[in-house]
């Protein structure tokens, strides 16, 4: 009986050591085992669907007759020529909103990083707070604030910035402002991180060398925060270009972006090939704008 237990224990140790030596002997196995489940999920549910989307973008036919694969490259041409207005609008709105998030958030996070003291983390919480209110509801709240009968429109009409029947809701301004608000934390956080890492002694050194405050900012602080600005630009611009919620809730069809077209083609008109080719056009244009951006700011900054 006791001997049996001992034997069992030895056997157990044996297997345990066996599995360990197995990993030791095949060192390449360990990362493979760790990676396999996660990467498989991404491959099957991200890469493969993109492949299917590409396949679908080259189909022809209609919802009634069904779709068949015919290398229909004209879908792409139709997508670009038919919806050039919405495409341009998407990139224009996303671009303006990205610049606006930078201009609004930079002074704020600068103040938190350099004058926040012990309240830094608590102040930072204010910046991420909008994330904890559902995206759609944040946007609906703006609908509420900018409504015709709301206080903002009333005030602007009183001081004659707006005409007596002037509106804020259902205008381009409202859509761009909505995108700006919704994506502001994506810009603010990376910029904050890069500002927070700046060694205060560098600024002292600049002032010792007779740099004015403005000059010290332009020559030291701003360049050192550039990585944060670059990261923030990517994080803001990409989702903003594909957004359709702000245009839908705060705008009219005159403000519709490419996301609105893709969404309605896919889910309302059931025109899969057109929706798929538009999705690819959107991705390609984002890629192109990133490459242009990379040329402007320098590749090493983009890849960090």
């Amino acid at each position, binding site marked *: 009986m006791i001997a049996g237990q001992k034997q069992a224990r030895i056997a157990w140790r044996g297997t*345990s050591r066996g599995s*360990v030596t197995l990993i030791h002997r095949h060192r390449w196995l*360990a990362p*493979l085992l*760790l*990676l396999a*489940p*996660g*990467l498989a*999920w*991404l491959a099957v*549910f*991200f*890469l493969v*669907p*993109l492949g*299917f*989307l590409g396949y679908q973008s080259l189909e022809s036919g209609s919802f009634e007759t069904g779709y068949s694969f015919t290398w229909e490259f004209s879908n792409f041409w139709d997508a670009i020529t038919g919806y050039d207005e919405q495409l341009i609008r998407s990139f224009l709105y996303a671009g303006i909103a990205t610049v606006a998030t930078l201009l*609004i*958030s930079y*002074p*704020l996070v*600068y*103040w938190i990083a350099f*004058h926040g003291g*012990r309240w830094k*983390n*608590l102040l930072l*919480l*204010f*910046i991420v*707070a909008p*994330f*904890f*209110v*559902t*995206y*759609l*509801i*944040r946007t*609906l*709240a*703006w609908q*509420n*604030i900018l409504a015709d009968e709301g206080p903002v429109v009333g005030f602007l009409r009183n001081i004659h910035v707006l005409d007596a029947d002037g509106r804020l809701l259902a205008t381009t301004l409202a859509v761009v402002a909505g995108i700006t*608000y919704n994506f502001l934390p994506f810009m603010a956080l990376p910029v904050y991180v890069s500002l927070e890492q700046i060694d205060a002694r560098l600024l002292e050194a600049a002032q010792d060398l007779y740099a004015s405050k403005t000059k010290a900012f332009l020559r030291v602080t701003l360049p050192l925060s550039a990585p944060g600005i670059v990261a923030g630009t990517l994080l803001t611009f*990409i*989702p903003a*270009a*594909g957004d*359709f*919620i702000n245009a839908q809730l705060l705008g009219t069809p005159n403000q519709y972006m490419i*996301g609105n077209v*893709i*969404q309605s083609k*896919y889910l309302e008109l059931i025109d899969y090939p057109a929706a798929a080719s538009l*999705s690819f056009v*959107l*991705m390609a244009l*984002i890629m192109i704008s990133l490459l242009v951006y990379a040329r402007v700011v320098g590749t090493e900054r983009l890849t960090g």
Partner: protein
Amino acid sequence: MTTAAEALPARPQPSAAARAWAFVRRHALGFYSVLALTYLMLPIAVVILFSLNQPAGRFNYTWEKFTFDNWTNWDAVPGIRDAVILSLEIALLSTIVATVLGTLVALALVRHRFRARGSTNLLVFLPMATPEIVLGASLLTLFLQVRFATGFTTIFIAHVMFIISYVVVTVKARLVGFDRHLEEAAMDLGANEWVTFYKVTLPLIAPAILSAALLGFAISIDDFVITYFNAGSETTFPLFVWGAARVAVPPQVNVVASAIFLIAITAMVINVIIQSRRGRQAKGIA
């Protein structure tokens, strides 16, 4: 005996306007920041305020009357309770799965050198750099092609897919500064690889895993676009809001949103306080 100040020639007193200007200049940034923070808080305040409103008609646009009724009868609107429960279920389930899968990938990326590291990093990064609408549309294409009915399972699959990348990035960031000597010490003391992982590695990276999981949960519960494409006839809370927005949003939607906000913000505040206490303690020891 004269003091230094008296010895100096009297400086001309700055005029009131100049002093006011100096005051403005000194405090302009702080003043601006308060304004900017107010701007960030404004919609949140509106959401909470209108959760306490008793709308006159169907539209909850103008302030009528203060009431707590919406909070006590938060599930009086048909469908809202089911939508909230579904959102919580999906968020919990997909966060657990994605956190496990993502943590394993992060461990492999930080601790092992292998040939496909570059392409692995790319595969993890790409879903975050793809517009949500493309992620949602392509996933729906897959389900349509293989004739897989959309519903609970497809929402779950989609959520795990987009959370994984965030988990990998968050955990990886913390693992980079990880002291591997601690693991070596455990192995020297006779622990095998599993015990070392369980007793040393896991407790050390637990905070990173927890913050990744919280981030994943928050993203999942907030997601509209990808879910919209892959939900079939199921309704999560954001989808419920979308449906309601086409007609009139009941104040109960504001109640749920306010509750989610207050719970999340309380958790964050507690976290900040604990972190800063710990930081001060650590400084005290040093």
